[in-house]
């Protein structure tokens, strides 16, 4: 148990910049048109951000049907894809974000269970 706690402490330490109030989260959601999956993803993302990030975030939705050249920049294959540009490191989450727990894991937002 002790060991586990240390581990989670470390993780919190690592994510310290995340927790500081000045830091803003920059998120990008890649979609291709207003597909049901895209809409679900956006709704889910909005909800999670409201709950977890207290307004310190910005979401940029990129429609690849309009700007296809942006796809290769973030190495987008699957859609929808959520990219955490800031804080670094860049993380990618694919899918419609319906599995909230996995989204939180993906974004490193789980505060040590």
């Amino acid at each position: 148990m002790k060991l586990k706690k240390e581990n989670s402490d470390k993780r919190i330490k690592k994510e310290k910049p995340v927790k500081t109030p000045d830091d803003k989260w920059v998120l990008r959601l890649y979609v291709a048109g207003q597909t049901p999956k895209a809409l679900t993803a956006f709704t889910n993302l909005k909800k999670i951000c409201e709950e977890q990030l207290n307004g310190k975030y910005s979401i940029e939705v990129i429609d690849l049907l309009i700007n296809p050249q942006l796809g290769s920049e973030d190495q987008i294959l699957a859609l929808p894809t959520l990219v955490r540009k800031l804080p670094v490191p860049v993380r990618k989450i694919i899918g419609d974000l319906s599995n909230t727990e996995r989204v939180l894991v993906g974004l490193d937002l789980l505060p040590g269970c």
Partner: protein
Amino acid sequence: MKKAESKLLNQTLSKSPTGIQGFDEITNGGLPTGRPTLVCGGAGCGKTLFGMEFLVRGATQFNEPGVFMSFEETNKELTKNVASLGFDLEDLIKNKKIALDHVHIERSEIEETGEYDLEGLFVRLNYAIDSIGAKRVVLDTIESLFAGLPNQLILRAELRRLFHWLKDKGVTAIITGERGEETLTRQGLEEYVSDCVIMLDHRVNEQTSTRRLRVVKYRGSMHGTNEYPFLIDENGFSVLPVTSLGLKHIVSNKRISSGITLLDKMLEGKGYYRGSTVLVSGTAGVGKTSIAAHFAEAACKRGERVLYFCFEESPNQLIRNMLSIGIKLEPWVRKGLLQFQATRPTFYGLEMHLAVTHKIVSAFKPAVVILDPINTFVIGDKESEVKTMLMRIVDFLKANQITALFTSLTSGESALESSDVGISSLIDTWLLLRDIELNGERNRGMYVLKSRGMANSNQIREFILTDHGVELREAYIGASGVLTGSARVAQEALENAEVLTRKHDIERKKREIERKRKTLEAQIAALHADFASEESEASKMIETEQDMIKRLEQDKIEMAVSRKAVIEKGTTSKLKK
């Protein structure tokens, strides 16, 4: 009928030429236009290069721009890698002939959180295709996705959709795949791409590697089904069609001299056919190379180009050795009519040899090609492979109307009339050199084992190397077989002596007859003389008799006169006289 068929074929399935040497020949025109083709094979067999050359040739030769979507190498790596093959990707990209897109996925960076699809890949591909108006697409190697994306079900469904989408888009696509254990590809891509499947293979046999290509499947088209060797050199990919050349080459009725007058005489007095294949085989040291050198020199003298592959000697050594029998090759080398190619057979694999031969022959355009000797290829390689290689060389040379002369060393134990590499059936004219051991001597004999299309001599000739080249002598057939060397000389002396005695005999007989004739003539002369004397005697007697008759008549007349008888006037006057 056949033409109509092929016309129909062309109507039903249009093909995109790859521009890859030899490949378009075995597929009758290239890859199926507007359909995906699967290229599979193990690591390092040239899949990426095949795809890249398809694009580059398409862009430069057929004006069909292409997209290369790489799942393994980055754009930079790719550009660098293919630059070594003479492809300038940067330039092509600048001119919008080729678009590169590197797709990178890192499993550790990705978190799956529900439903998704691969629309992003479609969008990128679509964008790349539309940005340059691409007609060709290469996906290399799409199987990497299986490592990057956890959900196989989605992936497989999406791949199926992707290949349909490519077809709808009308692009000619190549999808590469790593070879699997039991399946053609590790992830069973052949399930999705079923129009055309090409397999590349890279085998190492006895330390030399051979690349091979096979068209496993080509829906709606005829294709060569064999395994074709291919190579990758500084000019890119080249597939070597084994049978596509076939036996359709034009034949020539022209004859060319072998460079040895008596040998020409054995071949109807005219020499070899142009474009035929000549094999000179024999045991060690019987003068195979000398025959080859004679032929080379004769061709050079006619002003023809000769390409001489020597696999055992260096060109300088060969020139020196041939000088000792009076064949001067060096001036021809300087004139550029004679070119030597000296490589050890083990230097590279058979296919590479074949390709090198192709390349040099195409560049030098010789009328005569000499391979000396061919059996050194057998070292380390299977005979059948050597045979197919030589068959391809023969086909290739024949198709180009090049006269080929091969020499082959027969080892002492094996039968003389079998060449080590088993190519006798490919040979048009076969000269066999053999040594004849007799009376403690070893001499050389030569005969024409076969020569297609001519009434060749069936004699064994003695083969002598002199300081002015090869000489052939009539061989003597004695009770103990063919006589050569000193035995032949002895036989010659014997015959000469016999001839001399006969000559003496004749002389003697002639003299005898002369003598007989003279005696006869003398006898005739004596008889003549006898006759003459008898004749004169007889005539004298006749004269006397006649005188007597005259006198008697005179007496009668005188008696009558004295009796004063009437005498006819005529008679009196006559008498007065």
